[in-house]
């Protein structure tokens, strides 16, 4: 057995998943409430702890103490399974995200897979089972409609999501997220090719398909995480609470937190693919690949990664509280007729640029 590797992985899992992602989930719930309050000229929760920062803790205690009610008419096994199926994939996908360069000679990624994006899509698409099961097992009409909607929505937008990443994979020639970030650190972020090899005609031309990809990726991310303006599976004014109408207490909390976890992982992926992950712009403090990194630099890189992710989350929140909601058929049309076609054309455009521009 490779004990040092196992120990290092365990430490990374505990530190990253349980001491960074989960607190970040709590923090984004708090940020959602405070930022939405700021947008809406309200105060927001400000009683529990300084600036209301302990509000998520209070919410969590409330969720735990509520009666864990299981209605009589549900299919119990599936009903109990569904919340877990929403939460687990969200946390699993964080395994391949490089959240820093390296610390004590250890790469700051839990699993340095060579098929990072594929792993993310494979696992992330499992989330839909949780939602479908929740809608189906609840054996009630509003959750049923919510479940049906989310199935079609998530499956449709997964295609756009996958297609939007292909141009990037073609540009990087790489599926390892760690090396993708390293490449961007040295040669300019995919969206901002202003240094290294990126500072060339080819780099600028490639920024066009990358930008289109970014728009599609971000929009699909909204749809995948069921956030407004795509929150049709749970749109409260039509379907009461959609697929989790029949859930209460901690089971509801798992849906709730799963949504935020998915949002964070999605932001992390977008940051990694488009905005250079943990790297600073203009190649500042960029280590050679595989070279030893001073501890302070490693910490700065982790900080940079989370700063970018938090920026992205704020963007998510800002959009949510500014826009109305799509109608179901409009959403599907947008996905299949508009984004799907553009993403396909975008792949071809990238291929042409890569082929003809030296």
């Amino acid at each position, binding site marked *: 057995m490779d004990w040092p590797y196992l120990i290092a992985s365990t430490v990374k899992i505990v530190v990253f998943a349980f001491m960074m992602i989960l607190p970040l989930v709590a923090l984004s719930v708090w940020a959602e409430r405070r930022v*939405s309050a700021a*947008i*809406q*000229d*309200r105060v927001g929760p400000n009683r529990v702890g300084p600036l209301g920062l302990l509000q998520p803790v209070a919410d969590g205690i409330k969720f735990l103490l509520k009666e864990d009610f299981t209605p009589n*008419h549900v299919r119990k096994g599936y009903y109990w399974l569904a919340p877990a199926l929403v939460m687990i994939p969200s946390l699993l996908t964080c395994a391949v995200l490089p959240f820093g360069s390296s610390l004590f000679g250890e790469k700051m990624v839990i699993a340095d897979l060579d098929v990072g994006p594929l792993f993310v899509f494979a696992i992330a698409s499992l989330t839909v089972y949780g939602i479908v099961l929740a809608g189906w097992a609840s*054996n*009630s*009409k*509003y959750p049923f*409609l919510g479940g049906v909607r989310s199935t079609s929505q998530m499956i449709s937008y997964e295609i756009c999501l996958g297609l939007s990443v292909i141009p990037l994979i073609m540009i990087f020639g790489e599926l390892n997220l760690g090396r993708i970030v390293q490449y961007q650190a040295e040669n300019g972020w995919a969206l901002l090719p202003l240094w290294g090899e990126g500072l060339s005609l080819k780099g600028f031309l490639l920024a066009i398909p990358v930008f289109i990809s970014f728009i599609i990726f971000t929009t699909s991310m909204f749809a995948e995480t069921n956030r*407004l*303006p795509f*929150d*049709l599976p749970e*749109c*409260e*004014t*039509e379907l*009461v609470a959609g697929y989790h109408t029949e859930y209460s207490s901690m089971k509801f909390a798992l849906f709730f937190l799963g949504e935020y976890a998915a949002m964070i992982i999605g932001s992390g992926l977008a940051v990694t693919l488009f905005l250079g992950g943990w790297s600073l712009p203009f190649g500042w403090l960029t280590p050679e690949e595989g070279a030893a990194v001073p501890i302070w630099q490693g910490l700065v890189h982790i900080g940079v990664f989370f700063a970018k992710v938090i920026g992205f989350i704020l963007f998510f929140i800002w959009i949510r*509280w*500014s*826009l*109305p*909601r*799509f*109608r*179901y*058929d*409009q959403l599907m049309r947008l996905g299949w007729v508009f984004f799907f076609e553009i993403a396909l054309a975008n792949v071809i455009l990238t291929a042409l640029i890569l082929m003809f521009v030296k």
Partner: protein
Amino acid sequence: MPPTTKELEIADSAARVSQELEGYQQTTEDLVGEKLVLNMGPSHPATHGVLRLILELDGEIITKADPDVGFLHRGDEKIAENMQYNQFVPYTDRLDYLAPLANNVAYACAVEKLMDWELPARGKAIRVLCCEMARISAHLLGLGAYAMDVGAMTVFLYTFTEREKIYDLCELLTGARFTTSYTRVGGQIRDLPDGFLDQLNTFCDEFLVQLAEIDVLLSRNKIFLDRTKDIGVISKEDAISYGLSGPNLRGSGVEHDLRKAQPYLDYENYDFDIPVGEYGDCYDRYAVRMEEMRQSVKILRQCIKNMPDGAINVEDAKQRVPGKEKVLMSMEELIHHFILVTEGLDAPAGEVYFGAENPKGELGFYIHSKGGGVPYRLKIRAPSFVNLSILPKLLEGRLMSDTVAILGSLDFVMGECDR
């Protein structure tokens, strides 16, 4: 194969009851032809109160919609038969509870028409002020709730901030924020307080700024346009034949506003426009309400500028309760006070109908008097009730998601609908 009828197994007990009671039967010809009967309401986030919609869904498409009203029925019309005219004023607060001031005014005007009284100029101007404040308040809520129904939560809170200011003004004017009970037959309970007009003027300034912001958020928002354009189209003919009134009628392009058509309270002296829509879709109704608020501000400004001095109430020693100091000091007034409070007005026998242009439409009071202080029959023509009648027609064949957009754009209040 002949069509067969199939009973669906539905766990939801309320839906099953409705199915049995109202004889819903699904006729299926093929395997996928089962329809879903969905109970929307009476407690549902989008039904604005206690409206219950029984929707028959084929997938996401509504094949039949059946509004079930009456959950908030209090028997207001019967109650009115058992009390004196003035005692009914608080009940009018609870009709369209988003615009209690306008209801108070409409009711008082109806009884005054029966009594054949004419208010002094200042009294009329104050009533116009009340009506327009109520209109802004009600339209703001309708707009906010509509925006929230299609997912724009922030607009809802913006409108509530403004409504809060109107509530403050109401409190200043009447002493109550919500249940104002401001009018009495033949006048108001009190004159405008000091500085009220200045505060109202400040509100108008702030309100227009906020309204512009809401306009920016919604009016050209692509998602909002997609959700509202060509949805819930009411043709001119339908609007008239279903008896719609208010912004729902004008949204369909019929230029009919009682303030212009049959001016009351000297509305003919005010300069304002009647906005009308073009297609009668949800967006037109939204746009009409937006513009009506601006016109209301225009009327309010004219009120503030030209507020006449003088009495606010009808001066009729036999029919109006005299002032408190007079009651305590003079024999004659004490007697009148006693008679008026115990026996009520001495209303003439006859029948009158008075319709006022309320925020939701034409709120009418039909009073049948056989003389004395109590109406023999009082019928309330509730605009929300009439406007709701077109709902089944609008919903049929639309998507489930359009339900909320259409409900929101019709802007009804169940307190008035069920009365």
